[in-house]
């Protein structure tokens, strides 16, 4: 070392520049948030005892559970629809591509609420009777007027799944396209058939890529399940609405409903976090 030739430097402390701007900004943001909280407490916008009374009431919990079931099932079905739609879109077959693109355009381009109400009303008119028979059975499995079979739950599930399927289709397509082309070439060169390439290489990698976006969609769906209140399905918002229309505790019951939506969102976020940990991005 050349330490001997260099004049010795006194061991002075090093002072880094303070980020005053970010402190000022932080203080201002905190002030704004505090003002809102204080104002809402002072004006007593809600009566906490009423919130406490309803928050675990059987009707509300049942509504929350129904919302969770509806949102979760819709996500599962939408993922299946989305997968098929995405494969059609990247297939290179012009007819399949056109069908897939049209589906996405229609179902992503119209409000979910319109779709829900539309299916609930249009399906029984289009198909007045539902008849489903299995071979080698004397009596048909289902033979009933459609209005009896298409319950609000089924109509809501179909509506949400179809609408969400369009979004999931685009998300999954994006995931497939994000997988490096070389991965497909390498798998093909090994002698994998196209089905194997898809199942062993493309889907595992695309699956990891779409987890954050799919988690987002799950949270959106859990909240969109409230749209099913429009066709009479007893989910969380519908239950809360029914209660406050008789006791006029609007803010309290909306707070109760919001609480349960937040619980569901926390649940979905937890699932997403676990999935991202179990399948880390490589």
């Amino acid at each position: 070392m050349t330490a001997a030739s260099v004049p010795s430097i006194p061991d002075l402390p090093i002072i880094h520049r303070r980020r005053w701007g970010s402190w000022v900004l932080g203080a201002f943001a905190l002030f704004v948030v505090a003002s809102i909280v204080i104002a809402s407490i002072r004006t007593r916008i809600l009566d906490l005892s009423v919130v406490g009374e309803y928050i675990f009431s059987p009707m509300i919990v049942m509504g929350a559970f129904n919302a969770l079931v509806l949102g979760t099932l819709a996500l599962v079905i939408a993922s299946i629809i989305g997968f098929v739609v995405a494969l059609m879109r990247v297939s290179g077959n012009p007819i399949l591509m056109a069908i897939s693109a049209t589906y996405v355009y229609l179902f992503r381009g119209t409000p979910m609420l319109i779709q829900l109400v539309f299916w609930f009303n249009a399906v029984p008119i289009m198909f007045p009777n539902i008849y489903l028979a299995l071979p080698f059975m004397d009596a048909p499995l289902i033979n009933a007027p459609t209005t009896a079979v298409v319950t609000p739950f089924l109509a809501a599930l179909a509506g949400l799944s179809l609408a969400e399927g369009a979004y999931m289709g685009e998300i999954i397509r994006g995931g497939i396209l994000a997988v490096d082309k070389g991965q497909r070439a390498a798998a093909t060169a090994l002698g994998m058939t196209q089905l194997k390439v898809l199942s062993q290489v493309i889907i595992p990698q695309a699956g990891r890529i779409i987890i954050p976006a799919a988690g987002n969609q799950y949270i959106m769906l859990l909240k969109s399940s409230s749209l099913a209140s429009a066709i009479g399905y007893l989910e969380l918002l519908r239950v809360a609405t029914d209660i406050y229309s008789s006791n006029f505790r609007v803010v309290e019951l909306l707070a109760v409903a919001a609480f349960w939506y937040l619980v569901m969102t926390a649940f979905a976020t937890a699932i997403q976090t676990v999935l991202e940990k179990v399948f880390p991005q490589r």
Partner: protein
Amino acid sequence: MSTAPEQSHAVSMVGVSKKWGAVSAFTDVSFDVPQGEVVALLGPSGAGKSTLLRCVNHLETISAGRIYVHGDLIGYRLDKEALYELSDADISRQRQKIGMVFQHFNLFKHMTALQNVMSGPVHVLRASKAEAATLALDLLDKVGLKAKAGAYPSELSGGQQQRVAIARALAMRPRVLLLDEPTSALDPELAQEVVETIRRLAEEGQTMLIATHDMGLARDVADRVIFMEGGGLAEDASSKDFFTAPKSERARQFLARLLSAH
């Protein structure tokens, strides 16, 4: 197949052309590669070297001609003077015996080194996992990476990734190995370890077709050089002759440019 060439040739290219629409990659390329020979495909960028390799395992379709690997017509079935493209399953079966190594390695990112090497035997040949793992560990040992069996590609250097990729190709016991610019994405030090690996394969008698810009690899490892330029085969000579006494003017210019660049 009366028109099939000698079985002893590992690869036979017979008047092969490749066009994308009006753009021609190469035209009327013919050569035979005997079993055990190592051929370097040289030529300037865009001469169609990589495309030619990708035609050999039908990753690219051809526009004219025929390609045989050990007597099998690749990608097509000859029937009444027409060539019909084979099914996905049949082409996949042909590819099993043709290994390929890529410029950017293309290891499966979601699999460990070991799983990458096992992927061919397990998913293509339906070998048992235990059997495939034994073979894969042997091959990783051979390329000097047994200790990295559990590492994911993102945890490996470029040179290590390329050696795993070579092991992955070898796991299928290929009769022909196609290497597409195997050292081009690596800095010289890492390229050298890959060249060493390829040299050892050459010594074992592995038939190889190597598209490359790496003159060291071509001169020291290859038996023969096929020089492509301007969409065709410009020179076909032993590696020694090509580097000491190139016959064609274009090859001379190509070599002179390379030497002045260094």
